[in-house]
């Protein structure tokens, strides 16, 4: 798994490549938290365009960031997920709390709409 970040006003964009499972989830968790700490951003956009697999361990890492940010009014969004990954997110009912967007732009627009 590989992650790269881009800092936007109030939002961290994390682009995640590879497989999100119990091997990579601990790293994902740690690296996301470190970047959220360092940036001070309230919200997180996860670009999953190059994520090829996700299971409940990967979902756990994403939902954990939601739990962390939600109490402070921050938001988590996912964008550009591949069909196979989107399918798992949807079957797990994730979109009801973490919205999925087709593009990074749309995800960032939606963050602005709430203000940060």
């Amino acid at each position, binding site marked *: 798994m590989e992650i790269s970040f881009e800092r936007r006003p109030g939002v961290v964009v994390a682009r995640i490549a590879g497989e999100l499972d*119990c*091997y990579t989830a601990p790293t994902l968790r740690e690296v996301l938290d470190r970047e959220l700490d360092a940036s001070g951003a309230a919200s997180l956009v996860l670009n999953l365009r190059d994520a090829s697999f996700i299971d*409940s*361990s990967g979902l756990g890492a994403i939902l954990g960031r939601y*739990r962390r940010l*939600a109490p402070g009014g921050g938001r988590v969004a996912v964008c550009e997920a591949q069909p*196979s990954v989107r399918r798992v997110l*949807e*079957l797990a009912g994730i979109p009801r709390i973490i919205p999925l967007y087709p593009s990074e732009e749309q995800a960032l627009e939606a963050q602005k709409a709430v203000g940060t």
Partner: protein
Amino acid sequence: MTAGQANNWIILELPGLATNVGVARVAVAAFAAQLEFTLNDLEDIKLAVSEAVSNAVLHAYPPGEPGTVRIRAALVDGELELTVEDRGRGIDDVDRARQTGFSTLPDRMGMGFVFMEAFMDLVEVASRPGEGTTVRMRKRVGSEPRAEVPDQVQWDFAGAGPGPAHPRPDDSD
């Protein structure tokens, strides 16, 4: 050769290390690709393998002392039969373990068994405390994943703390 495939199988043994979960996924998917599974089916199978092998990695053995995990995949009557077996600590109460959101680890979602059930056609769990756990699953060609996983889960996710350590009375599976 095609006739032989009806009785085809693979057994994969590996130490219960997190890094091996992906190896198990890939091997079983490559094997299952011999049946007429769709790409979605193969993704479902990968997910189920991932959940079952992750459980053996995370729950069966003491941290730092990974025991062996044995995965068997077989083509039986046009179906994929999948068995994931460990010789670890076993599960005290299988019914409780299978309930949505139940986990004995604080940072886990308790969604592994729920996912296996959602994506496979049959999931059987046999376990004896101190002896190990065997998860048996089946997937038919062309079967669809069951709707959504239960609603209760979202509620737990949305909470600030980790999931409940014990199932609620209305957590049915």
